[in-house]
């Protein structure tokens, strides 16, 4: 169902971009590579009939979050981040763990679930989708009917995160006035 050319292109590029992220010596380079990964993912979403999610992906990830990262990096000044490893044995074990994870997930993706779910480039029969599947209208319809409570909860979560960020990032940092003033209000 997905065009194999699209899939393989996107897959190769996104894996490459992801590797660039985790191996970046310059944070700005890393951030740019991450944008690339997110954008490629958005392409995948489009191909998977998730138009709305693809749009959100671009806006939130590639837009907002990205800007946030770059902003913080700029705030602290560009610098070289090396590969020094202060914890003994961490690197070896981490390699093992990552390899294990990759193998397991790949194996599970290929074998561990019913065959119809494995969406490889090889064409497998897929269910027919209703018209407008993944469109903003269909998503919104579901979100504000049966998922309305989680939506509200997420709204509260975002509000709390916003307040938290304001408190934490106020001048003085963790030990700054933010913490002290909350301590004072407790009295």
């Amino acid at each position, binding site marked *: 169902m997905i065009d194999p050319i699209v899939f393989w292109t996107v897959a190769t590029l996104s894996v490459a971009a992801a590797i660039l992220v985790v191996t970046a010596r310059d944070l700005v380079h890393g951030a740019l590579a991450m944008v690339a990964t997110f954008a490629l993912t958005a392409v995948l979403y489009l191909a998977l009939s998730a138009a709305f999610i693809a749009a959100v992906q671009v806006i939130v990830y590639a837009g907002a979050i990205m800007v946030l990262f770059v902003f913080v990096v700029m705030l602290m000044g560009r610098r070289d981040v090396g590969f020094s490893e202060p914890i003994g044995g961490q690197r070896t074990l981490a390699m*093992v763990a990552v390899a294990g*994870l990759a193998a397991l997930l790949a194996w599970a993706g290929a074998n561990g679930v019913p065959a119809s779910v494995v969406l490889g480039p090889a064409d497998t029969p897929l269910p027919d989708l209703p018209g407008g599947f993944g469109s903003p209208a269909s998503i919104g319809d579901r979100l504000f009917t049966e998922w309305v409570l989680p939506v509200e909860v997420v709204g509260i979560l975002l509000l709390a995160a916003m307040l938290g960020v304001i408190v934490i990032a106020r001048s003085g940092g963790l030990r700054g006035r933010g913490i002290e003033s909350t301590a004072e209000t407790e009295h």
Partner: protein
Amino acid sequence: MDMTAYSLLPLTLALPLAGVVLLTLFGGRLGGARSGVLATAIVGLTFLVAVAIALDFTDSVTASGSLPDGSAGIGSAEDGSTGDVAVGDHGVGDATGDHGVDESGLLGDSSSTDDQHGVVAPHIERSLWTWIRVKRSFADYELVPVTIAARDIPDLSRITPDMVAVVEVQAGTRAGPRTVREELPLMWDPEAIVGVQIFRGAITPGTILSTRVATALGADDKIFVPADLASPGFTADVSLTLDGLSLLMLLIVTGVGFLIHLFSIGYMAHDPDRRRYFTYLNLFIFSMLVLVLGGNFLMLFVGWELVGACSYLLIGFWHRDPANAWAGRKAFIVNRIGDMAFVIGLMLIWTTYGSLAFADVLPAAAGGAVTGSIAIAIPALLLIGATGKSAQLPLFVWLPDAMAGPTPVSALIHAATMVTAGVYMIARAHPLFEAAPVVLAAVAIVGAATALMAALIALVQVDIKRVLAYSTVSQLGYMFMAVGAGAYAAGVFHLMTHAFFKALLFLGAGSVMHAMEHGFAHGGAHPADGSGRESASMSDASFDPPLDAPSSASHAPASISTPDLDVDGHSEVDLGGAGASSPPRPDHFTDVPAHQDMRMMGGLLSRAPITGWTFLVGGLALAGVFPLAGFWSKDEILLETLARAGGSDGGTLWVVLYGVGLFTALLTAIYTGRQLLMVLAGAPRSTGAKNAAESPWTMTLPLVVLAVLSAVGGLVVLQTFGAPLLHLLEPVLGAHPAEGGPSKLNMALMASAASLSGLAIAYALYGARAIDPDRIATALPVAYRWLSRKLMIDELYDAVVVHPFQRLAPALWHRIDEGVLDRVVNGAGRSLIASAQAWRHVQNGRVRSYGLSIALGAVALGILLVFADRLSGVLLP
């Protein structure tokens, strides 16, 4: 019936408990005096509630037309002619029909009750509150055989979601067969699926929880299932029951309790710890009410233990004196022995009858559901429990020492209420006892032996409280004798009158001691210790000889202050093998505080008249003088005992018991008369007695009230007054067995003769001094010494039980505890520290290291999941 007063029943429990809470929380702010008033007011209020309940209760009883006129009360013609003396004439036979309360009467339908003659409703058992259902299944792995009645076993290879296995399990519990029927959906019940798997394989112990399905599948087989399927597990309700017996106890506890609270306000006025005292006292009232109102054996046991704890706390109330603390400990430990038996008895009741509720167990026992050794074991164990709580042989030793507590406590707990719990329990559980006549006889024998022995010991005591303590033991023996004879109502009747006059006597003794202390304080001497006595005032000291009577009869004053108690070799040093760990045994002749020493008293009748006269009334009631309360109840007991002799079972035994009872009545009169004469009559023998003064009104008012009750309390059995007591008790305890017994008039004359001659002997010995009591003591030195040392029973227990334990304990301490257990414990600690030292490096505070652990764990779990199929053969059986 009017539900309003009944629904107040929980209030009687809630009020004292609220008192405890209030005093604990706010007592400090209130201060001692107001704490006492608060506690007293609360108990008074409780008593009023109890009275309201009682009025409601008796209304519904009389509404059913039990006694429209006096005629129904008279049992038989020849007894009717004896008039007032015909005590115990409860009119069995046809009268029971009148006493019986039919259900329609209870519901307020009193119009049709006149023609209810002959319709006997055996129980007034009503008003059962159940608030909380305590449920706990303890029988998880007890296996009982069951037979499976399930049939339609589905084809297991094609299970569909709507398939249901019908399980019908019949399990034979001891209480009878139970059938459990369950429908188990096979597909979605995880247990069912496991059950299918079990059915494919063998049933292993590890899969026992799923066997309820396995039983369904292994049809037509005998199979073992967990017992909680077969029986519903342990349940006991927090329930209250109200019938005549518990109502009577409720009234006694709250009424006497209120008076004693009131007395305590004055008596404890100068004690800095009054707040603690009144808190304990309220807690005790609550506990006692739990005991008497509980609707099952578990509630009874909870109350039983709570009153024990209160008793311990109050005996050791003045715990700064180690002797008092030891006395409390002794009471506690001796009671534990009885309680252990009691608990085992309760377990047996549970396993035998499958319930602890009175409403379940007692009718079953009365119906003869259980026979054989288990029917004997249960009441025997309960009896042992009762001997502990009610201070009977062989566990009575704690009660005399319990006099270390404040005197109102002795009056409330160790005379009027708590110690009668054993009698109450036996009366309550009488169907259990009746199922085993041999145990019932044992109850009577224990009671009679205790009564006799304690009365003998009481003859020679000089401490005013100890005389009363032994008297209490003796009177409790009477009660046991009564319930052992099957005369439960007589036992409970004596319980009631005893609560009146013994509380009166103890309070009177407290008032006397108060007066004596006052006298000593204003007479210039130190009252607190024995050294403070002036020998100048001891001119009459030969009144009661010291221990080594033979040598000191003629020069008593000097020897009283220095009696040599170790002549018989049983000194503290000999007995206290382990030195300081041995309890200090108060020497009952030298360690008596001056204000408690009857040898120091005398002439108090004129100096503290209210105390004196009420004390006199109480003493005469105890001695059983007509027409005071003690006469009626004691006579009742003797009558019932002798009536048993005429019965079919064991004639001579009951004759002997009757003789013992009669002789004890004589002894009772002697020691009572001696006490009365020593305390009240004659010339004062110390400055304390000379300067004694009357106590404040809060102390004298309870005395007066109790004196009135002691005087007229016995009349409640008289048919002339409608015999309200028997109407209360008969539906619970059954009608009196006395039929064709001995003549009641003769019996009453015998009892009166015993008590009057006892008083006369006492007067001859101690009043008129016709015979010098010293000479009797001189003539019988061995008997005297044994009696004065309480028959050496404490020493016997020390030698047999306490000292072996004390010798064993250090050995265990050094070898086992220090050698093994300490090492294990310390080793566990050390290895924990070592491992913690090793593992703390894992907790390095580095997030990435933690992340690595998570990742590795995830990989390991993933591998386990992925390869679970292939590993299952290896890891899982």
